[in-house]
């Protein structure tokens, strides 16, 4: 479902930026408030305002993993915050008080910081994503952000951009010279879960259709079964997703697949209960994890990971499957090995990131 704001709130300082010019050109007639500074918690009915601001902090940061669990060493390129897809479990509900999507329009500053960051450690392999605090492609039809990012990464031999999305808004990617340096990734869940818990996002069919198109354009793709949700019939539900996934895309072109069961800071529980009183995602039992987040009881997590791992490897044995934020003992029980036995999780993913597979047309 395409995001379309009812009003733009733009800081005057970024009025000349390419992103602002683009959105004004693509959305004529949209009411605009020009302001000196957008307050932190600006109004906006149901998050219907798009705030376009100058970001004054660090655009690139390491993913906020914890020392208690294996972190993949991902880096976040933060170009905006909030999301309008309305997933019941979304952690952004607890992170940000304003429901409005906010775009950082000083892209030149972001690219400069990113360049400096990459130059600081030229031998390092950088896996960088824009989908941590918003959906990577949510605003793309409006602002064409990918037109700036994909060519930039195409020129970076040691850096990979991962665009994580729950949309099917990939049209702009078709004509780009990505040189294999951009990975397009989708979060997947069974159709009944998407209908219930991800109601504003693209359907499973739409997501897989978009993935197929991206593969056809030479992109490597990735999939994130995150959050995996336990519900009556979850085995059958995820089995169907896996079957549909491999009937849509070439498994050889999947750079990685991550698994992560539902987890959240305790403060999110109340937010979910208030916003989505009919959701059933809180029905399962949760225990506090080592990082303070509430998680499914470990035996259930292991059961779900082992099931998905077997299902996925049963179809294509060369997949790179990893667990997001899990401990060695859960890795060992679910997968039969720990990341350190394969050089560490970060190195496992770096190797995949640099693999030069270009999928055949399908």
């Amino acid at each position: 479902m395409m995001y379309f704001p009812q009003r733009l709130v733009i800081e005057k300082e970024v009025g000349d930026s390419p992103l602002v010019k683009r959105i004004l050109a693509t959305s004529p007639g949209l009411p605009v408030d020009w302001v000196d500074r957008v307050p932190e918690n600006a109004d906006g009915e149901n998050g219907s305002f798009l705030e376009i601001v100058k970001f004054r902090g660090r655009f690139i940061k390491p993913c906020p993993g914890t020392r208690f669990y294996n972190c993949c060493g991902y880096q976040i390129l933060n170009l905006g915050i909030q999301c309008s897809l309305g997933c019941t479990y979304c952690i952004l509900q607890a992170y940000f008080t304003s429901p409005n999507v906010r775009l950082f329009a000083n892209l030149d500053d972001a690219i400069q910081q990113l360049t400096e960051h990459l130059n600081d450690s030229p031998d390092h392999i950088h896996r960088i994503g824009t989908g941590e605090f918003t959906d990577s492609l949510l605003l793309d039809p409006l602002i064409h952000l990918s037109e700036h990012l994909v060519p930039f990464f195409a020129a970076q031999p040691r850096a990979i951009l991962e665009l994580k999305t729950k949309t099917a808004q990939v049209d702009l990617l078709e004509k780009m010279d990505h040189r294999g340096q951009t990975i397009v990734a989708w979060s997947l869940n069974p159709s009944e879960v998407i209908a219930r818990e991800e109601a504003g996002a693209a359907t499973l069919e739409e997501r897989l259709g978009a993935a197929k198109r991206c593969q056809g354009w030479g992109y490597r793709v990735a999939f994130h079964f995150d959050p995996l949700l336990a519900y009556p019939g979850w085995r059958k539900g995820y089995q169907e997703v896996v079957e549909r996934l491999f009937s849509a895309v070439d498994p050889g072109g999947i750079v990685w697949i991550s698994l992560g069961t539902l987890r959240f800071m305790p403060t999110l529980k109340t937010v979910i209960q208030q916003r989505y009183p009919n959701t059933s995602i809180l029905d399962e039992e949760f225990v506090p994890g080592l990082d303070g987040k509430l998680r499914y009881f470990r035996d259930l997590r292991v059961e779900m990971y082992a099931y998905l791992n077997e299902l996925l490897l049963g179809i294509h044995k060369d997949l790179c499957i990893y667990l997001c934020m899990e401990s060695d003992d859960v890795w060992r029980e679910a997968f039969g090995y720990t990341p350190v036995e394969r050089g560490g999780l970060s190195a496992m993913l770096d190797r995949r990131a640099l693999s030069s597979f270009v999928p055949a047309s399908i």
Partner: protein
Amino acid sequence: MLDKESYSIQLDEVDWNDTSCLITYGPLPDKLILSIQTVGLIHKPLLQRKSDGLFRIICGSRRLAVCRQLGLSPLSCEVLSISTSPVTSLRTAIYDNIAQRVLNPVEKSLVLTKMAKHLNQPQLVQEFMPLLDLEPSDTLCSRYVQLLPLEAPILDAIAEGTLHERIGFVLSPLERGDRLAFFNFFQELPFSVSVQEELVETVVEIGQRDNFTPRQILDSAEVNDLRRAHKRPARQRAQQIRKQLQARRTPRLTARQERFARETKDLGLPPGVRLIPPPYFEGPKWSLEFTFAGAEELAIRLRSVARLAEQAKFQRIMERE
């Protein structure tokens, strides 16, 4: 300063139905009755003349109620001008009360609810919450305001201090029947406030998952059997019910704990040695606790545990089903 004059007022001139400035809640204090009975009314109540000729009570509602009960009339009262604004009258009532005593939680709710009609939220929170010894927070303010619609027995218990206002907060979003079911349950069995909060959350979540109302769960045969086992001490019954409800809410964790207890018993650890799993079986760090009288005893226990650690059944304890 307030514009007021002294008058002799007949009690049937008081509008007892006008509670716009009433912020007291709870029974009349025995000592106030005794005081008025013994020496009469010492401090004059403050009233306000209304356009219909009756008088609104601003300060001294309990003194007036006692006088009415004792049939003391007329009374010498201070009377505010008819032109005094409603917010000034209410503010006067509040400041008069807080200068004399600590308000109970229901009275705090009355203050915030009534003042909310005259002030915006930031003014209300910044001026009145510190005055009521409350942290100035929008969330807490809303919670106090939500107390007032609760049923009279619950409000009475909160005012008396036999039910904590935190329990009122967690009961407020529930249906009336469910609130009263919890209230009766908590009146009957001795749970701490934090356990009461935990039980409300547990029972509500079981109900949402299994499609029962909280009242149905609290009145279920399993819970009732324990509630009515009057031969057992109340504290023991309370613990058993809590355990039973927790097991129903977290069956996987409970099963794992039971299995752990069973297997640890079968393992035959020496006396003075306790195997402790990680909290919620999360993470790899298991602990052993030794109690010993001296080095020799410790050495014996260590050797014994070392032998056990080599056995397959010791390893099995740490594995999932």
